[in-house]
């Protein structure tokens, strides 16, 4: 058996769909963030896989992933700072319950 590209892309696709599902159904903000990470990770894998199979020896996909990881780290840190702040103000981090600032 030969592990072709599709063998890698299908699991990442499932991973991505799990992320979508989680993002749409979860109410806890941290759980939503976790789902987001899932999606991001799936995309990262795709970059690497395409790079590896179609352009071996080049490193564009790999570096893109590298930068994506760095940015994801930054984004998560900031998001968690905000979430903690919201929690401090509202004692709650359910997105459906945060209606104070709504019109």
């Amino acid at each position, binding site marked *: 058996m030969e*592990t072709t590209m599709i*063998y890698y*892309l299908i699991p990442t696709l499932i991973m991505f769909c799990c992320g979508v599902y989680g993002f749409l*159904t979860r109410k806890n903000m*941290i759980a939503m963030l976790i789902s987001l990470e899932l999606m991001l990770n799936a995309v990262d894998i795709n970059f*690497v896989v395409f790079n590896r199979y179609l352009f071996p020896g080049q490193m564009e996909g790999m570096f893109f992933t590298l930068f994506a990881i*760095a940015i994801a780290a930054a984004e998560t840190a900031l998001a*968690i700072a905000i979430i*903690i702040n919201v929690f401090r103000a509202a004692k709650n981090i*359910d997105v459906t319950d945060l209606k104070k600032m709504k019109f």
Partner: protein
Amino acid sequence: MESVGSIIMYWIIALSIVVFSVLTVTTRKILRSATYLLFTLFATAALYFKLDYEFLGAVQIAVYAGGIVVLFVFSILLTSHPGHNSERLVSRRRVLGLVASVATLVIAGYALVSRCGMLCTKLPQMSNPDMKTIGTTLMGSGDGQYLLPFEAVSVLLLACIIGGVVVARKR
């Protein structure tokens, strides 16, 4: 033809990715969800190793698994009330989410399958990019080198540190 060990390795990775992703979004305890995410990320790192990107795999483990998940765990412990770590989902909401994700799966999967010819390329031979090459590519300013994005990301991280401190500090 690949070695049997390699194929077994692939199946383990693929299965753990799928299973742990699904568990991440279906478990009702948020701390478990974070733990499953950790396993998913480990599996991803293993996948990078398998595809001969050792450096990327190491970064994945160090930054994602070591940094971000720990951050998640900390924030979960900070924000969740003890004894209230399960959330009840409305069934309508769950069905809708399911529909959306399945639709995504179908459409993207159809796109993938219809391009099967291109996607069935075999794994080409490739030597591992060694650290020296990675370093020069990351730090060089020439053609196909990434000094500028590197600096941009460093500035972004700095801004993020400051922003995080400002947002989260006690007033």
